[in-house]
């Protein structure tokens, strides 16, 4: 436990020392809020648009999921740097357990995501977002599960793939369709049946629906339970895969 904490604290210190850390993570979501939000306002009145015709209630919860997806999906690159600089190697010859090492990185990613999500929620308040407090807490839990899932996959890939460009390609190949099919940008029920069917196999579709329900305080909405269960299972599986990767002697 102490080891995991030491690793996470070291990583947080490194993150916070980057003068752009908060900005770089939040830049994209805020641009979306500023530029895409008003565009959505125009179509929010269209019949069938979820969120009761209110664009920000529709869009901000999606952005939170998107931030979780992108914020943790590229963590593999930071691990790549740690391999290249010898930092990870130096830690691996100390008596720290591979479990603590892996969990330390995951803890850092999770804390970082929680802070970013809270900042994003606060910013969204200024755009008129109404937030249910209990729902928001559950949403943060969901975001952490997403973060663990994505960071674990990304870290595991980072351990395997030496070439940064290939890593980026793989990550983007999965993240982009996952994001579009989740209905973050536009409601999936606007799409043709094929897209709607494809969305059903995208775990992020459930996460985005749950996020919208939670912001409104619909804690009992079926999407909430399904999203939490899906990502609890995915987080557990992916974390196990990452920890196993850490245990095998890699690079």
């Amino acid at each position: 436990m102490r080891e995991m904490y030491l690793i996470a604290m070291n990583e947080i210190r490194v993150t916070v020392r980057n003068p752009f850390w908060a900005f770089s993570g939040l830049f994209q979501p805020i641009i979306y809020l500023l530029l895409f939000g008003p565009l959505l306002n125009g179509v929010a009145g269209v019949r069938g648009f979820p969120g009761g015709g209110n664009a920000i209630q529709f869009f901000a919860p999606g952005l939170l999921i998107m931030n979780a997806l992108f914020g943790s999906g590229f963590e593999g690159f930071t691990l790549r740097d740690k391999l290249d600089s010898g930092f990870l190697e130096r830690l691996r010859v100390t008596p720290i357990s591979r479990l603590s090492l892996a969990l330390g990185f995951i803890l850092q990613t999770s804390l970082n995501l929680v802070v970013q999500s809270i900042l994003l929620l606060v910013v969204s308040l200024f755009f008129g977002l109404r937030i249910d407090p209990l729902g928001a807490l559950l949403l943060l839990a969901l975001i952490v599960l997403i973060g663990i899932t994505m960071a674990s996959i990304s870290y595991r890939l980072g351990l395997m793939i030496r070439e940064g460009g290939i890593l980026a390609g793989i990550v983007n190949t999965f993240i982009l369709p996952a994001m579009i099919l989740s209905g973050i940008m536009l409601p999936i029920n606007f799409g043709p049946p094929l897209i709607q069917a494809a969305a059903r196999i995208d775990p992020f579709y459930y996460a985005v629906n749950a996020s919208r329900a939670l912001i409104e305080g619909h804690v009992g909405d079926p999407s909430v339970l399904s999203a939490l269960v899906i990502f609890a299972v995915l987080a557990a599986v992916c974390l196990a895969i990452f920890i196993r990767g850490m245990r095998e002697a890699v690079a």
Partner: protein
Amino acid sequence: MAASPIIHTEKLGKRFAGHKKGEVVDAVRDLDLEVAKGEIFGLLGPNGAGKTTAMRMLCTLLVPTAGKASVAGFDLTTQAHEIRRHIGYVGQKGGMEQVATGRENLMLHAQLYRMSKAEAARRIDALIGRLKLSTFADRKTETYSGGQRRIFDLASGVINHPELLFLDEPSTGLDPQSRARVWEEVKALHEQGTSIFVTTHYLEEADALCDRVAIVDLGRIVALGTPAELKKQIAGDIITVSYDAPERAEAAVKLLEGNPLVLERHAIEDGHQLYVDKGDEALPVILRTLGQGGAAPKSVHLSRPSLDDVFLKLTGRSMRDTGEEQH
């Protein structure tokens, strides 16, 4: 040799999957080593010889695919965790976090060895004082020069008072002063009783630091002994003689023909190299022979063979023109 060696290996090997399917690369083959407590032991070889792979196995960074080993009294395959408590390691890349200060890096490493914060702070202060790091200890390591970084890496490597310190190419890429500084500190650690295992492709480094050296090539040990013993494998000493005029050199060749003192003769630009058994005794005799025969040399240089000459003799290749590092 001491009763319980600090490193003992039997037929240790590491096989990697090759680039092509089904192809395998034996980076290390049948490594049998015994390193005594308190010894500075060197693995010397060109890039790609397998010395880094061998070291990475011994310090628990790579799992061997063959054989067995004990390090600091613990079994390499079943007690890696115990081994990590007792060893220090300074890799080629160092491993400092760039945006943290040297002191912060040391603090993290010390705490990972289960030191309390106060205990760690005392240890770090002592190290910073002894190694004279105080002027830059509180700057981010990204601002360090190569030499400063390497001394900090060394401090990190000994933060846990290891019985055995692994150094992977400790002076690669350093300027001569920094290299001398690193050697000085390594020798000081040796005097305090630390056993040291070092890989290097610098012959001078192996010669200057090591009690014993194993020369490795293509994953195998090709020679093992003290630097002096290894150099003895090359017949005696080398006398390099040069002349003012080519006629004199030709005359000298005739004069030395059949001379029992000259074991081998190799022509060089303006003279020749003579391999002799005992250089200090042979030199005056040869000079007299040359002088009396009218082939007095312009200059004479007596040298001992270098480890490079040993490598050349054993492998038929020079250390400088061998391949890429594999792992």
